[in-house]
Structure formats: structure tokens, C-alpha cells
């Protein structure tokens, strides 16, 4: 027996109030929208959810409502009419039909121009090249579609900080599936990627330093066309931001060596999801150095690694020494700002040498670090000169104090002598009288 429409007076009266909490950011919804009214009042959280979420959905603000995706007639309060096939009601779209459903508008350049002329219209096309799209095509019912990442019924603009696609939220959006071992069982891919990424320097830059250009999942994997970068494209992906190391690596002997061993550039030494802050300890022949993973002791590469590390250490230590001397002079009140300004050249040289490590050429690193060392030597000498000047002033102060003490002693002696003389003169006067 078909379910008949039962007016729900209490629920219907409550509808405007239920929306009140969302009125600040919610758009004005049509008052006579039976979809929202009915779903809001049915009491079943599963069917109430779309009506509760939709006031924050960007589509509503553009005049796109339930019937534009689900068909039906929202003007009718009779559910038979509102959800009739005659009104093209489709209900809940099939999982596999979702990309095409969204693409009906989002792939239509003419239509989308009405709302945002700069909006891309190739998302569906790109999606079909993704692992998600390919698996969906193969009939995988768990493969992500548009609504998996865009918070169905509460789709927000990408610049909206509450959007699931806002940069700082992307990792959790992807992590809803990729961080869930139960959901991902059977796919044979690791599910610790989210936890690892959250330990990375990229996540720190994104969330703690507020650098929204720092990479999150979609920056390296693509968003609509999400695919793991292949071994051959990793350097290009990382090189999008880290272009200097990528260029150096391409010129290095490692380029060929990695390719022949099937090793991916960048991630072999830096890892992929848990990329941590790099340091000089990564270079060289100690346990913490990544070079020793491949280079055996006494091999050519081993010696190159040791030499590169020595060059870096040499410049870093001379920079530290020069900085310490300048700090000491500055704290003592000496004017060393010019030397400190010039010392910046050595910091630049150290940074350039660190980037040039990707050349794996000890001679090139040494050339850069020697340039830096010359700068540190000049700054160090200026710092020492300032300290010598300070010492001279201190000595001058002690000499002045010594002289003042001598003058005081002299004065005391002089006063005593004058007193003695007067005393003797008075005694002589008394004797003569």
C-alpha cells in the first residue's frame, strides 16, 4: 500500500525554527519546498540529514535545489506527486551515476559561465582518469565519487574554510577512506598515510604556519584525477615547488643510477608522506645519513658523501663562530650591524650548498662553501676587531680609574703634608714666642 501524505503539523511548524541556527550563513530557501519540509520532519536521521545540511550548500544560494539533482516537484505537498516518475523523480542516484549527474552542469561550459566564468569544467573528464574513476567504472561501489569529497548536500565553495576541500581539511577528507583500515581492506594500500602526513613538514607548514600553498594530498596526487605519482614523475611533482633541487638532481649521477634501480627520485631519501625537515645530518657517512643506505664504506660515493658533509660542516661551524663573535660584540654594545649584514651572504651560500647537495658533486659543494667561508672570515675578523676595541676601552677605563686613584692618593698626601707643615710652623712660632 503506497504511503500517503500525512500532514505533520508539529514538525512543519518547527521547520522555520529548526533552520534558525543556520540562518547566519545559510541562504534563503524557498518557503514552499516540500522536499525540505518533509525530510526535516520525518524523524529518521538518515533522511533528515539532506534537509538539515542543505541550507549551507552553495547550490541553494545559486538557486539550484533538490529537484535539479533528484527530479520531482518540490511545489507539491503530496508525496505521490512530489516524487512521481511523471515529474522525473530519480530519488537517490546510483553510486556509479554520480559523476555524470554532477557533470550534467559542471561539464557544461556555457551553463557554468553563468555562475563563475573562471570555474573549470573538466573535472569529470579528469575524474575518469583517476584511480577512483577507473575503479568506479569497473563497478567498485566503494570508489570515491564527487560527493565523497564534497560533503553531499552541504557542498561549499573551495575557499570556504568549512569546506571539506579547503587545504587544511583535505587530509581528513581523504583520510575518511584512506585512513580507515576497515574501509580500505582489500585494496592492498597502506592506511597509515594520513598519520604519516600529519608528522610531515608539509602539514606543519599548512596548519601551524598557515601556509595554504603547502602541499596536502591533492597537490601531489591530483584532486579530481587523483593517482599516485609514478616513479618517473615524482621528481616533476616535487619539482613543482622544489625546482632547484629537482634541477640539480636531474644533472647528478643519481638520475641514471636511480632510474636503473627503479628507485623514485626525492622520496627514496626524503620519504613521501612523512617528509620531515631536512638537516645536514642526512648527508655524509654517519648512521643518520641517507647516503650510506646505498654507498658502501670506501666506495667513491661514500667518499663523496663524506667530503660534502665536511664542506657543509665547515661552513656551518665557521658561520656559527662568526655569529657568536658578532653576538658577543653586539651584546657588549659594539656597533657590528654592517658585519652582520655582510654575514647574510654566508647564510645564503650555506643554503645554496645544501640545495646543491642534489648534484652529488663534492667539488661543486666545496666551491660554494669556500665562498661562504670567505665571508664568515671577514665577518669574524670584524667581530674580533670590535671586541678588541671593546677591550681597549675597558683597559682605558681601568687606566683612568688608576689615575684617578693616584690623584686621590696624591691629594691625601698633599693635604697631610700641608697639615704637617702648618703644624711645624705653629710649633716653631710657639717656640720663638
Amino acid at each position, binding site marked *: 500500500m503506497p504511503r500517503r501524505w500525512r500532514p505533520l503539523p508539529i514538525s512543519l511548524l518547527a521547520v522555520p525554527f529548526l533552520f534558525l541556527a543556520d540562518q547566519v550563513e545559510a541562504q534563503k530557501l524557498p518557503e514552499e519546498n516540500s522536499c525540505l519540509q518533509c525530510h526535516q520532519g520525518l524523524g529518521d536521521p538518515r533522511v533528515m540529514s539532506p534537509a538539515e545540511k542543505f541550507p549551507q550548500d552553495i547550490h541553494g544560494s545559486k538557486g539550484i535545489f533538490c529537484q535539479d539533482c533528484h527530479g520531482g516537484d518540490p511545489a507539491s505537498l503530496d508525496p505521490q506527486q512530489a516524487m512521481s516518475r511523471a515529474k522525473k523523480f530519480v530519488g537517490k542516484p546510483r553510486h556509479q551515476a554520480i559523476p555524470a549527474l554532477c557533470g550534467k552542469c559542471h561539464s557544461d561550459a556555457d551553463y557554468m559561465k553563468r555562475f563563475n566564468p573562471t570555474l573549470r569544467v573538466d573535472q569529470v573528464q579528469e575524474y575518469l582518469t583517476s584511480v577512483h574513476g577507473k575503479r568506479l567504472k569497473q563497478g567498485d561501489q566503494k570508489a570515491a565519487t564527487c560527493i565523497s569529497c564534497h560533503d553531499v548536500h552541504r557542498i561549499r565553495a573551495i575557499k570556504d574554510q568549512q569546506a571539506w576541500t579547503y587545504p587544511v581539511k583535505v587530509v581528513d577528507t581523504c583520510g575518511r577512506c584512506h585512513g580507515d583500515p576497515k574501509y580500505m581492506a582489500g585494496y592492498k594500500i597502506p592506511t597509515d598515510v594520513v598519520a604519516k602526513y600529519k608528522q610531515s613538514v608539509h602539514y606543519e607548514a599548512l596548519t601551524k604556519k598557515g601556509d595554504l600553498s603547502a602541499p596536502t594530498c591533492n597537490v601531489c596526487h591530483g584532486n579530481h584525477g587523483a593517482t599516485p605519482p609514478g616513479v618517473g614523475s615524482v621528481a616533476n611533482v616535487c619539482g613543482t615547488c622544489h625546482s632547484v633541487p629537482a634541477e640539480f638532481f636531474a644533472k647528478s649521477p643519481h638520475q641514471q643510477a636511480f632510474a636503473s634501480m627503479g628507485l623514485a627520485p626525492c622520496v627514496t631519501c626524503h620519504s613521501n608522506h612523512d617528509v620531515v625537515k631536512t638537516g645536514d645530518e642526512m648527508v655524509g657517512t654517519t648512521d643518520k645519513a641517507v647516503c650510506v643506505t646505498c654507498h658502501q664504506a670506501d666506495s667513491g660515493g661514500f667518499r663523496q658523501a663524506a667530503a660534502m658533509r665536511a664542506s657543509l660542516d665547515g661552513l656551518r661551524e665557521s658561520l656559527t663562530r662568526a655569529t657568536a663573535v658578532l653576538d658577543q660584540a653586539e651584546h657588549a654594545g659594539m656597533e657590528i650591524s654592517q658585519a652582520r649584514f655582510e654575514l647574510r651572504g654566508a647564510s645564503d651560500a650555506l*643554503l645554496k650548498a645544501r640545495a646543491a647537495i642534489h648534484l652529488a658533486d663534492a667539488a661543486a659543494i666545496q666551491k660554494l662553501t669556500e665562498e661562504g667561508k670567505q665571508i664568515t672570515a671577514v665577518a669574524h675578523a670584524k667581530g674580533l676587531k670590535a671586541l678588541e676595541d671593546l677591550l681597549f676601552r675597558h683597559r682605558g677605563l681601568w687606566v683612568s680609574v688608576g689615575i684617578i686613584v693616584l690623584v686621590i692618593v696624591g691629594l691625601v698626601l698633599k693635604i697631610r703634608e700641608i697639615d704637617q707643615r702648618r703644624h711645624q710652623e705653629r710649633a716653631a712660632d710657639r717656640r720663638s714666642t
Partner: protein
Amino acid sequence: MNTPTNSRRGFVNCLLGGGFGAMVVSVLYPVVRYIIPPKSGEPTIANVTLPWKPNEIRVNSGRIFRFGNQPGILVKTPAGELRAFNAVCTHLNCTVQYREEKQDIWCACHNGVYDLNGKNVSGPPPRPLETYKAFVKGEQIVVSKGA
């Protein structure tokens, strides 16, 4: 006749006179040293007058100058407008430079690129360069904070 008393008196007078003279010198010397400013004084952090005349700066060129302890970069744009920025790259603090051929501001350390408004446009820099105000005052170029 040179009695012991006269000899002692002469010594004390000498000590007193010499000491007084030395005291005068020792007091005046530090005063003079402090009055004469050091060779390179710290410019005020609010503004700095550059050592170049406006017509010395070529169109489509950039020069590094000192702004306090930090480098600044003065750019004369292809349109002939003077602009100034803090020249410290917002990525890892290298000193940026002007690239005439690309008409941009570039950090050689990690290939960070800024446009002529100081906005980071490619590479790793996370933020724009701090913008200074550059203006011509008579025959001098003055750069100040708070553009």
C-alpha cells in the same frame, strides 16, 4: 740646599700635576670617542636614504640596499616606477634579486619568484615580500616602512 722634605714635596707635586693632567685626558678621550659617531651607524628602522640619485637607477633594474640589519631591494620597474621591498626571501631567508630578463624578483637559493608587487608567484616562498614605500625627496631616494 736640597733637603729630604723638599725632595718629597717635589715628588708629590709632580705626582699631583701629572695625575691631574692624565685625569683630564682620560676623561676627555672617552667623551670625544663617544661624541664622534662610529664609521657605520645603525640607520633608523623607520626609513633610510639610499646612496643613489633617482636618475642613476636604470629602468628595469634592481639594487640591494641596507635597511637596518636586513637587505632591501629597490626596483625600477619597466614603467619607470620605483618600488622597494624587504629583500629577505620568505622561504628560508636568502637575499632575493631582480631579474631583468624576466622582470621579476627572484631567490636563487630555491627558485622562489615574486612579481613586482612583491607577491609570491611560484616556487616555495609562502608569503609575499614585505613592501616598503619608496619615494624621491629632492635628489634623494628615501625608503620607509609602512607602504
